[in-house]
Structure formats: structure tokens, C-alpha cells
């Protein structure tokens, strides 16, 4: 029989307000379990490749969040200040440019960015793997940061309608401090964290997709073999693709499930890591919405 304390823990975890924390634990635990499984069944060279790919993908996702937050914050403030000062022409030019980026499908923009990066790598300008990862993340963030910029503008517009904005101005507090500290840092942190989580999920999805496309479709100069290994490029390898193709064996022979989990581990591992992370990120973001009534 359960003790009172363990029942309380179960109830607390079941409480809907804690959903984001629960999913965070589940994500870490899931990847940990996957890791343990790999230690037993996956061969060492593949294990080290998968480990590097997972690390690079997660790091790239975090870098995209950092770049998007920085670019989004700066561009949100830029548009706000241009709007406030009634600089009509620069305001129109900047919003026109941002809307143009918005209209370009993200994958197309990133693909073009990767072509530029490849030429820089071929010319020997981008050599260090970390620098390559940094530039890949920057390219992705160029097509994601507008979500953050929109949020920043929305939060400022929301608080500007309230009395406290005018009251603070009357108290002699500088507008830049009201916007950056009082509105964005103190009163919009939950919104920004939520957006950061969503951007992380989007970045992972886009990066994996573009790396997969480059590895499958372009086999010569514009190749992801020029870039550091990520989950997408690992999934595009022939052996990983064969592992994924093996899933359809289950439709004809259900007992093949056990073979999938031991013999076709590399591809399944990577696919699972991508999908599981995306599901967890989605639920963490939802949990934040519930917890903070965003």
C-alpha cells in the first residue's frame, strides 16, 4: 500500500500546474534511458557518432534560442522606437523588410543560407567546427527571431495601455528602463521563457530537416558532410535510413519489433531522439502556458 507521502508526490506530479516540470523530467529521463539502452546494444563507433550528433543538435538549438532572443529583443525595440518617434520612412522600410522575411518559407531561407555557409567553408573561412555550428545556428535564427520580436512588441503594447506605464514616467523613470526592466524582464519573463522553449523546438525541427535534405539531395559541394554532425545528417546516412525502412517490416511480421530495438538501433535512436524531444518541448511549452496563464 502507498504511504501518505508517496501519494502526495504522485498527486503533486499529477497536478496540472506542474506539467512543464514533469515533462522536463520525462525528457531527461527518456534520453537517459535511451542512453542506457544504447550502451548495451549499440556498437561503439555508432554510439560516439550519435552522442556527438545529439550534443551538436541540442547545442545548436540553444544557440538559436540565444540568437533569436537577442535579435528579437533588439528588432522589437527598434520597431517600437521608430513607431514612437513617428519616423515613417524608416519604420515602413524596417517593417517591410521583416514582413518579407516572414513571407519567405523558413526552409528556403535556411537552404540559401547554408549554400552561403558552404561556400565559406570551401574557401576555408569557416574552419573550426564550433564556428560552423555557430553560423548554422545564426542562419536558422534569422528565420525564427521574428516570433520573439512580435512577442516583445505585443508585451510593450499591452503594458503601455495600463496606468503603471504613465505613472512610472511621471516618477521620472526612463522609458528604456520601464520597457527593458519593468515590462520585459520583470513582467514578461514567463512569456519569454515560453517563447524560448517554442523556438528551441522549431530550431531542432528546422535544423534536422535541412541537414537531412542536404545529405540526401545534394551530394557534392553543398553537402552536410562539410558541417558538424547533427541528428538530421546522421539520420540521412545510408545505415540509419535502412534502420528506418526496417520499421515497415513490422507490418508484415509483428515479432520483428524486438529486432528493431536491438539490430536497427542507430536510425531508430536518432528518430526517437528527434520526435521525443519535439513532443516534450511541446508539452513543456503547454505546461508553461497553463502554469502562468499566458
Amino acid at each position: 500500500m502507498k504511504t501518505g507521502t508517496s501519494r502526495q508526490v504522485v498527486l503533486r506530479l499529477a497536478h496540472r500546474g506542474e506539467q512543464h516540470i514533469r515533462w522536463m523530467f520525462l525528457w531527461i529521463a527518456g534520453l537517459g534511458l535511451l542512453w542506457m539502452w544504447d550502451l548495451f546494444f549499440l556498437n561503439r563507433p555508432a554510439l560516439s557518432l550519435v552522442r556527438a550528433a545529439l550534443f551538436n543538435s541540442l547545442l545548436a538549438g540553444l544557440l538559436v534560442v540565444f540568437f533569436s532572443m537577442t535579435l528579437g529583443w533588439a528588432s522589437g525595440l527598434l520597431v517600437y522606437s521608430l513607431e514612437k518617434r513617428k519616423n515613417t520612412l524608416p519604420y515602413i522600410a524596417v517593417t517591410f523588410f521583416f514582413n518579407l522575411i516572414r513571407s519567405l518559407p523558413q526552409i528556403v531561407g535556411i537552404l540559401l543560407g547554408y549554400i552561403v555557409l558552404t561556400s565559406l567553408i570551401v574557401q576555408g573561412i569557416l574552419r573550426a567546427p564550433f564556428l560552423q555550428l555557430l553560423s548554422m545556428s545564426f542562419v536558422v535564427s534569422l528565420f525564427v527571431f521574428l516570433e520573439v520580436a512580435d512577442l516583445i512588441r505585443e508585451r510593450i503594447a499591452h503594458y503601455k495601455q495600463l496606468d503603471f506605464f504613465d505613472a512610472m514616467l511621471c516618477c521620472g523613470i526612463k522609458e528604456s528602463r520601464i520597457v527593458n526592466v519593468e515590462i520585459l524582464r520583470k513582467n514578461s519573463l514567463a512569456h519569454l521563457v515560453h517563447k524560448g522553449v517554442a523556438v528551441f523546438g522549431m530550431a531542432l525541427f528546422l535544423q534536422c530537416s535541412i541537414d537531412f535534405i542536404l545529405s540526401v539531395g545534394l551530394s557534392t559541394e553543398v553537402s552536410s558532410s562539410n558541417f558538424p554532425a547533427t541528428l538530421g545528417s546522421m539520420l540521412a546516412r545510408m545505415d540509419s535510413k535502412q534502420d528506418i525502412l526496417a520499421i515497415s517490416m513490422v507490418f508484415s511480421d509483428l515479432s520483428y519489433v524486438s529486432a528493431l530495438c536491438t539490430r536497427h538501433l542507430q536510425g531508430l535512436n536518432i528518430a526517437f531522439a528527434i520526435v521525443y524531444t519535439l513532443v516534450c518541448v511541446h508539452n513543456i511549452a503547454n505546461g508553461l502556458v497553463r502554469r502562468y496563464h499566458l
Partner: protein
Amino acid sequence: MQGKIAEHIGSLAFVALVFAVLLVYLKHLEAADRQARAQAVAPYVSIPGIDFGNPRDRALFNEALNLFRPASPAANDSLISAIESYRQSRFTDPNLKTGAAERGLTWHVAGKLTVMYLQFVLVFGIVLGLTFYGAQSLGIYRFVRMKQGRGSYVEEFLQLVSRPNVGGEHLIRIRKASFLLVKGFLKGVAYAILFSPAYVIGYSFKASFETNSLLFMILLGVVSNGLLVNYANKFYTLLATENRKGYVETALVKNLGGEFFWNAPGGITYRSILSLPRHFPGHVLQHIYLNARHQYFPTLKEQASFLITGLIIIEMALNIQGHLCYELLQNILYRQYDIVLTILFAIFLLVKVTDILVDVRHHREELRYENRN
């Protein structure tokens, strides 16, 4: 409204101009690059008595180079490989072939691209319609479940097992718990499919189904890449936000239906969620839904852009030959920039036309809401 349309047309004109300039520049760059490469190796390939197709001659030439220029072995190796690639290009580069089909954007290629583009637009339209409908249905379903006070199946399971035992209901609880676990598992599988990138699902089914068909592409477009589930979530958030507004409580006080249990008298039916157009007569959900839908409509632009990203991923990653984005990828590979830019502009045009249609529709609805029409 006119300002918005002017902005859309302006951005179309701007992109067309940028692409035209880029095209001229890339053509010039390509020609200059080809000429420079040919000039760099020209003095060597015409040396009499040396056949670069013969390995012995190549080795002799390499040794002679190293004797004349011993300080720069890397440059010597580069020269050898440049000569080799120049020789190869004489056989493989379509620009240097006389009998090959004409390169670049010809009328024949334009005709082929138009057919592919129309197919792409058709798939886009169908998937957009299905996801727009599906996202709203799923969003309402989640909202109704939230109003019923129900959480996820795992939450319900945890609550069930942590509830104190009351004599004689062990079997019922075990049955309920296992039923919840099965439902939770199925929901997990559904989530895994909905969040899977299209190429994962595509390759999983490639050996069993015909994955190159249009129907499979539409299906993949709807269920993969997280499109449906993300936009269902957006619609759900809008419904939840509307639900917190004062008019909902006022309506309930004035005796408008507020029962959210399935098929209960005055409650919600599955059919009303799935039917088109959706109606919840005499129920507060009707007003919550209409207001949320009005706010959701502009996100259709964002959804369209993301959907195009998804379709491009599907066509490129699954190597579906004869489709627009596969052609785009191939032409990037063969450096046929005029075709690449034409396809990109066509895709951009599709996004912009969708934006204009959504803006016009939203503007009309806004006028109706504000009693200005």
C-alpha cells in the same frame, strides 16, 4: 486594407527585382569562374606529347612540377586536380556539350515547371484546407475536455491509483486503470506521428506503401511535421483566452447553455465539432468559437508559410521525382540558377497570394464585426 495590399504587391515587386539582379550576377559569376578555371589549366593541357588520360604521363607531369616548383607541393597537387576536373568537365558539363539539350530556362522547361507548380498548389490548397479544419476541430475537442475538468489520461491514471481504496471496487479500478493506460498509449503513438518530421514517417512506410503518390503526400502534409498539433494548440489557446473574458460569464448568467459534457441535454456533441459549418445553437461555445475563429484567421498566413516549409521538406527529403521542390534541389546541384530563382519566386508568389486572400477575408469579417459594412 489598400495599404496592406500595396505592401504585398510592393514586396512581390521587390523580390522580383532582387531575383533578376541576382540572376544576372550569378550568370556573370558562373561564366567568369568557368573562364578563369579554363585559363588556369590551358597552358598545361595543350603541352604536346602529354596525355593526361594516361596515369604514367600524369605521374611524370607531377614529378616534373615538383622538380620545377619544389617549394609548393600543395599548389602542385591543386594544379593536378584542377586539370583533372577540367578534363572531366569536358565530358560531363552540359555547358561544354554540343549535342545535349539546351541548358537553363527554356519554354519546354517552363512548361514542365508550370505543371509541377500547379500540382504543388493543388496539394498546398488541399492540405491547408484540411489542417485549417482539423486544427479547429482538435482545438475545440481539447477545450471541451478542459471544460469537463479532464486532464491527460496519465493524470487520470495517477489520480485513480492514488485514490484511497473503498471496499469492493478493486476490479473496477483495475479495469479503468488499464483502459486509461491503453488510451494513454494510443494518444502517445498519435502524438509521435503528429510530431514526426515527414521524412521519418515517409521512410518508415516506404517499403510497404507507394510513397510517391499525391495522396500520400497530402496525408503526410496533414499529419506530419507537427503542423496539425501546433495549430490545434494555437486555436485551443485562443478558445481558452476567450473563455476567460467577462462576456462568457454574463452569457451564462443570462441562461445561455454552458453544459460541456458529451451528448448531455444542452451539452456538446461530437457531430457538432466535426460538422461544417460548426454550430452550437443556444450554447455559449458558439460565441467563444466565433470570436476565437476571428482571431485565428490571420494565423492562417503563418500556417500557410509553415505548410509550404513542410511540403518542401517532404518533396526534397523523400526525393519525390517530378515534383517542384525535388526539381529545385536538383537545379541547385547543377547550378542552374535561372530555374532555381524561378521556382523560388513561384513559391514566394504562392505565399503572397495566400497572404492577400487571408487579409482581404479578415478585413471583410472585421468590417462585419464592427458593423461598418
